[in-house]
């Protein structure tokens, strides 16, 4: 059957092939051959050579092939693309049913290339139901299929850190509200010691926009809280899923004093089993200048490495145990020493990864 599909296309749609079959002598009222470039896509010429022989061998009824009287429309004489051009009318089904058995029938026939109609702008149902009610229902229906908004609060880190000398706590979480593309995001992270003030804390309020399947562009403000100076920053960053399933965040912060900070964060969830998951995590903070009031020095100021093993009782609730190492560098380390703080160390982390 397939060679015949081919030959039907060639014979009727491709002028070169058609001439080989000597269609010039046919009686085709009102029909103009389409210019070559208008012909629908067809097999490469190389393919036509072997195919050309097939119909005569395979089809003992040449009447249906080139050379037949095409006054009465048959499937071969009124190709859809010609019908679309008004050259002829498509064949009624009954006639086609009488076509010789070896001709491509029904779905075996090639399709034409008529243009689509213009899309209507009215609701057909408005003829049967109250148009205002129908318009309202239509809007609701569209909103319900893809336009929903959601909200989530997720704490990747919410833990107690047990370390020599001083036990503390650490959190890193975010909440968002919005649709698939545009979201309002609130992020917060910080740490502190028990029985002490909060050492470091910050809150960011960001507008987030999906810019590709995996990445969000985020911009907004950051407010520092905690022991250091309570600076306010303009923030711009990206967040998303990198190849190999790394969750990655990167951001720049420009303070109201003109100070520039940067942060990069990444983690990876390695499934040990379906519910036991090991998460290595890294966070680097950088500064373009010394900021004594904030106890931050130029260059790499702090680095944090963590390895946490969680068990997902359910996806939303996963207690974990892990180790966290953090270090302060350069001027930041000196600030810490002069404040009587250590410049880093290892902690045992006990926490709960949770979202709701």
């Amino acid at each position: 059957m397939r060679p015949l599909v081919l030959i039907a296309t060639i014979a009727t749609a491709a002028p070169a092939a058609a001439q080989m079959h000597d269609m010039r002598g046919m009686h085709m009222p009102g029909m103009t051959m389409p210019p070559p470039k208008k012909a629908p896509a067809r097999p490469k010429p190389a393919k036509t050579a072997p195919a050309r022989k097939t119909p005569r061998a395979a089809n003992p009824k040449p009447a249906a092939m080139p050379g037949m009287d095409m006054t009465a429309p048959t499937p071969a004489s009124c190709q859809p693309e010609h019908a679309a051009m008004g050259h002829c009318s498509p064949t009624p089904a009954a006639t086609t049913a009488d076509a010789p058995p070896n001709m491509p029938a029904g779905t075996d026939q090639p399709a034409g290339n008529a243009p689509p109609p213009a899309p209507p702008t009215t609701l057909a149902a408005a003829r049967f139901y109250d148009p205002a009610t129908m318009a309202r229902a239509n809007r609701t229906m569209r909103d319900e299929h893809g336009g929903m908004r959601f909200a989530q609060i997720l704490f990747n880190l919410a833990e107690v850190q047990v370390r020599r000398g001083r036990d503390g706590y650490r959190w890193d979480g975010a909440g968002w509200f919005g649709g698939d593309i545009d979201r309002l995001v609130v992020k917060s992270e910080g740490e502190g010691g028990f029985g002490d003030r909060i050492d470091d804390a910050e809150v960011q309020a960001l507008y987030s926009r999906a810019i590709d399947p995996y990445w969000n562009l985020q911009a907004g403000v950051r407010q520092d809280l905690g022991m250091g100076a309570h600076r306010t920053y303009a923030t711009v960053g990206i967040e998303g899923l990198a190849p190999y399933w790394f969750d990655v965040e990167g951001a720049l912060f420009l303070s109201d004093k003109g100070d520039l900070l940067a942060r990069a964060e990444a983690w990876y969830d390695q499934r040990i089993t379906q519910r036991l998951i090991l998460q290595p995590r890294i966070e680097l903070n950088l500064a373009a200048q010394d900021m004594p009031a904030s106890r931050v020095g130029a260059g790499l100021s702090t680095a944090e490495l963590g390895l946490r093993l969680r068990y997902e009782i359910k996806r939303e609730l996963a207690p974990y145990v892990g180790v966290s190492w953090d270090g302060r560098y350069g001027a930041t380390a000196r600030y810490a020493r002069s404040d009587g703080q250590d410049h880093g160390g290892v902690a045992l982390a006990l926490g709960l990864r949770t979202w709701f």
Partner: protein
Amino acid sequence: MTRPTRRRFLRDATLGGGALALPWLPAWAQPVSAGLATPLQTVSGTDIALTVAHRMMTIDGKPSHAIGINGTVPGPLIRLKQGQNVRLAVTNTLDEDTSIHWHGLLLPFQMDGVPGISFPGIPARTTFTYDFPVIQAGTYWYHSHSGLQEQMGHYGPIVIDPEGADPVQADREHVIVLSDHSPLHPHAIFRRLKLQGGYFNYQKQTFAGLLAGRDQPLKERLMWGGMRMDPTDVSDVTGATYSYLVNGHGPADNWTALFAPGERVRLRIVNASAMTNFNVRIPGLTLTVVQADGQNVKPVAVDELQIAVAETYDVLVGPATPQAYTLVAEAWDRSGMARATLAPRPGMVAPVPALRTRPLATMKDMGMGAMAGMSGVDHAAPAACPPEHAAMGHCTPAGDTGMAGMKHGMRDFANAPELPKTPVVQTVAPMPVDRTGEPPQGLADAGHRVLVYRDLVALDRNPDLRAPSRQLRIHLTGNMERYMWAFDGVKLNAVVAPIPFRQGERVRVTLVNDTMMAHPIHLHGHFFELVTGHGDHAPRKHTINVAPGGTATFDLTADAPGDWAFHCHLLYHMHAGMMQVVTVRPDGEAGAGA
């Protein structure tokens, strides 16, 4: 098969006792069913009343919240006769709008039951009466098209007996409604998917699996990880939350269909699931497929078939010995199964086969069809690029393109210039091929005869034999990370224009699946003919499951004027935006009345 034989009408009232124990189930869905040869406990006639209400159902002994119709989940069997008129008065006792869509029925569009497209919906505590002529015969079903009510049990079967002799002759018949049910509210399921696309997948690849030598080797895992593609992502919602049901009963309930040895039994199988394609088999029995989507097909004998969401298949089985057989409907990701028993007497059971290993997606599932073929024994040019497609310019015969395809990335818009570069489009199939001749996902190595779409041949000649006057490509696009799904990269909420058809025109539609998941695509109000090489006996369907990274082509005669829904029948894909409106208008009306 096509010769009419005497039909035995079985009457079996002795098993009605089950109704006492489980009063919310109709007789045809009682744990032990005598079969449907008797017109018992169905609704039929020209005036039918249906009431939609909240209720509790019990699955494997556990109570679960549901929405039922006339007090049952699934709803009552609606049994009609071709040629009759029917008035269906649907009363909504819920506190929210509802609707019933008559899936697969050809009817005036304003009776099709899709809120916002065919009518405004049925507001709380009101009654809406559907009224239409029944012009066809076969197995169909009905379900809510409002919100996510379908997931909660708002569905039921329809059987329409033909006016003349039924070419399918059977001594007895049973309706098998397959579905999935969760104790979670469907909105909770949808929210979880939105927040974490793989929330319900507890069959992912793990480090423990790597050490044990299971699943992909490390090199392959790295390659897939580099593409951010998860080969275990087969079903979005799984047995982790679902119970898989036969006629509303869990596997432990063991719904039983009776037969007498030697009978020819017709099973009318409906997949009323929200999200689950099922692999159906009855170990020990051959399934002879005689109808697909309500349309008769030439009998095909298989050992197993995959029924996609919203499809129906009628099969004949001939159990010759007085033993029990297990009907296994395995979820396509093998995370669970629905189970029923065919037996000569109630209470008999047969061994229940274990779940098979879950399938892993392949390169071909990512749309690297021709490239995947290259790694095989031959270049598989005919499969990868059938000549008729080459003739249409859909592809070029393989061989010279394989290497070129290798250079394509997974999101190269050069492969689909018509697609917008939206976040919905996570991947663009680099070399999608027609996969209607292949076993459905996970069944290539089943080791026995598996139904493929190309096996289906219409019993009767197609009604419209014209060649299509034009062709149309529609991309199935998605983003598993954000759980966004859409046609042509635009979710329905962002769509500005419908997909227009001229009334009466015949159009060849190719669905290109750019995602790594199968999508059962359903067009309301029409049957289309699959372009699978069967000429004027193309199988006619209302739903086509497009394989991952593959294409499927059908010819559609747009003969039903009005507006029609067109969507992926995976409920949460539709809800996420994988839906469009198809308009069928007389030529010249387009754009009028703007």
